[in-house]
């Protein structure tokens, strides 16, 4: 059937079973918007800024197994989307971003709303395309979805000049796609897997360390079986929270800069470390030289070979899809008769329990001041630990990660890699569309929330019952913490003066605003938000202790066993 390029774009989205597209119209995408208007299978969510369109698509992708889709116009539409794209790229989130482009004949002539979208986005996409001919459009869209979702996932940009969306050709959506230059490995090398299992069975101080890859590949179930089968300690990174149930005894918490004592010490002192879908990030292992001082064997499972031996030399690399490799490991363990070194393991657990006994997450409850940690603990209680928690970036992000005990995957949405302030509310929006039956929370601060505050309007338009938990300490908290600890308490530009009245602001957008100033009011306010106003968007402006800091802390450049604890100060 003959179709215009614009019709083809929409038909491709339908073929890919895309339910929601987050976007913002403009000149170069008007043909596409006209086609959107004429159908009702693909629902368009109008945001208030293109950055939020990409973040919302990203939030939807993080909370589901789907590819998120955003649609923006050329020039400023595309450049506004760049922060969202880079955020998704750093955390390997599958997205397809459709950008309008000026007509082919105008490209390179500094036309109105022209920018080199493919050039600007090149370093922060998995791949991108400029579609020059309508006859290539359908196959390009197919490739975009295929590349975004397979291998190590990531964002793919499809830049479409306006004349291509008007041109006509026969529509034929390919069922499958073969690319000679792109064939990600799925199955791990059996010999390597066998070596890894042998090493694990001989380990005296084993440790399992898992990252975002376990969440992205939906391997939480296999991870849990393997960990329980071996009886080893396990930790989940900031990107990997929820991969293993936080309430389980074998779970040591989050490792890294603000990780627990038991997780960091066990990482540092392990003799065999099994890294799964993790990348030995600087915020996770601290100083790699210090980390390397303790001799240990490292097994690393990752779908991306370039993640292996990038920052830390690995002894047993296994390239493959995490669930596939873990299934193979479980099979080998089923056939094993020797078992783990139980005596050594018992001794190792004793040492770990010693670290755990330090209770590094304990915090002092100050009189008349709301402790941010307490708010998150209460949030966990009131939501029964069942909410999807989107977070912004800063101290509140760390407290949410530390104190909201995630039992299941895809419930914790945050910008771990790029650390983009402003993602919280759009992430919550994306998750709210995908999970209308779940409680959706945005944990934020008074600084982060203002970076995408305009989305309160989108939330109103689509009546999304998001609960915004704003831990308001009137400071750029994480900046303030570093300035206090490493810059002689010179609080350069980290004080937020002239804050808006968030209650009135929420009300102005048609939402419910509640200010909380006393510790004894926290629980009641949360209940009011989640029970009385179940179906409304509620903005909880919670005035917290201005001096609260995130502990434990491994200072930048320090080693994992050199943590600063709350009681040290």
């Amino acid at each position, binding site marked *: 059937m003959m179709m215009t390029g614009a019709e083809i774009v929409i038909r491709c989205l339908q073929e890919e079973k895309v339910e929601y597209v987050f976007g913002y119209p403009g000149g170069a995408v008007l043909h596409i918007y006209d086609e959107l208007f004429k159908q009702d299978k693909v629902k368009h969510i109008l945001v208030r800024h293109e950055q939020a369109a990409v973040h919302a698509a990203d939030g939807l992708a993080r909370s589901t197994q789907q590819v998120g889709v955003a649609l923006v116009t050329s020039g400023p539409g595309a450049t506004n989307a760049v922060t969202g794209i880079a955020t998704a790229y750093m955390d390997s989130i599958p997205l397809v971003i459709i950008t309008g482009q000026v007509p082919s004949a105008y490209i390179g002539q500094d036309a109105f709303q022209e920018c080199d979208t*493919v050039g600007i986005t*090149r*370093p922060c996409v*998995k791949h991108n395309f400029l579609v020059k001919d309508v006859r290539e459009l359908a196959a390009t869209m197919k490739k975009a979805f295929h590349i975004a979702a397979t291998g190590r996932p990531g964002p793919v940009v499809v830049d479409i000049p306006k004349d291509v969306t008007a041109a006509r050709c026969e529509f034929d959506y390919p069922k499958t796609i073969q690319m000679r*230059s792109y064939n990600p490995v799925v199955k791990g090398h059996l010999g390597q897997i066998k070596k890894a299992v042998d090493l694990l069975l001989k380990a005296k101080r084993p440790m399992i360390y898992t990252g975002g890859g376990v969440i992205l590949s939906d391997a939480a179930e296999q991870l849990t079986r393997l960990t329980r089968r071996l009886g080893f300690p396990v930790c989940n990174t900031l990107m990997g929270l929820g991969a293993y149930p936080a309430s389980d005894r074998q779970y040591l918490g989050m490792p890294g800069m603000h990780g627990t004592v038991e997780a960091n010490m066990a990482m540092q002192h392990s003799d065999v470390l099994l890294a799964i879908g993790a990348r030995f990030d600087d915020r996770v292992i601290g100083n790699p030289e210090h980390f390397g001082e303790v001799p240990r064997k490292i097994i690393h499972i990752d779908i991306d070979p*370039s993640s292996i031996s990038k920052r830390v030399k690995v002894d047993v690399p296994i390239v493959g899809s995490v669930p596939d490799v873990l299934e193979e490991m479980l099979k080998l363990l089923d056939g094993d008769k020797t078992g783990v070194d139980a005596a050594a393991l018992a001794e190792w657990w004793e040492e770990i329990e010693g670290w755990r006994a330090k209770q590094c997450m304990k915090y002092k409850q100050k009189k008349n001041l709301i402790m941010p940690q307490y708010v998150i603990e209460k949030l966990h209680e009131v939501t029964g630990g069942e909410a999807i928690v989107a977070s912004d970036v800063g101290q509140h992000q760390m407290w949410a990660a530390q104190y909201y005990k995630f039992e299941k995957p895809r419930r914790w949405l945050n910008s771990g890699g790029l650390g983009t302030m402003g993602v919280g509310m759009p992430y919550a929006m994306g998750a709210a569309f995908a999970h209308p039956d779940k409680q959706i929370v945005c944990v934020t601060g008074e600084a982060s929330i203002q970076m995408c505050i305009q989305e309160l309007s989108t939330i109103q338009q689509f009546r999304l019952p998001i609960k915004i938990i704003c831990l308001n300490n009137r400071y750029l908290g994480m900046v303030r913490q570093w300035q206090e600890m490493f810059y002689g308490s010179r609080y350069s530009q980290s004080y937020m003066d002239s804050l808006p009245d968030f209650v009135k602001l929420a009300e102005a957008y048609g939402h419910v605003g509640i200010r909380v100033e006393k510790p004894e009011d926290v629980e009641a306010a949360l209940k009011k938000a989640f029970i009385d106003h179940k179906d409304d968007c509620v903005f909880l402006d919670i005035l917290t202790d201005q001096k609260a800091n995130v502990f434990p802390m491994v200072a930048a450049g320090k080693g994992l066993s050199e943590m600063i604890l709350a009681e040290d100060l």
Partner: protein
Amino acid sequence: MRHIISILLENEAGALSRVAGLFSARAYNIESLTVAPTEDDSLSRMTIVTRGSDEILEQITKQLNKLVDVIKVVDLSEAAHIERELMLIKVRATGKDREEMKRMAEIFRGRIIDVTDSTYVVELTGTGAKLDAFIQAIDAGLILETVRTGVSGIGRGDRILKV
């Protein structure tokens, strides 16, 4: 260590900038880069000369393989290979220098491909080191212009880089 990386990639617009962008974004060094279509015009063959430790080279190879347009990557310098570079060098050739320059070109098996009453253009092929040696061997004051293509490389014998 110096390495010669050979890459077979899709002959698509932007493929070159993806490779060049990767090197600058990750702070890898490029000494030279050459690229042109192969006998199959849907493919380009690229040769990059770079320097780095074994760890960096491992990352360069992995990162290149990760690019969607890249089909195959080989470190030619890992085994027997041939490398060649072409140089066109314009030199002043007057008086006694005229004969001297002609002799030097012959010694280096170069060819004089353009002649005026005061200049020669010498065409010279060889390894980068040989071209360097030629530049060293002649009077620096006589060099008017040099153009070098950068290294192209190919494996010896059965080492074949093909789809």
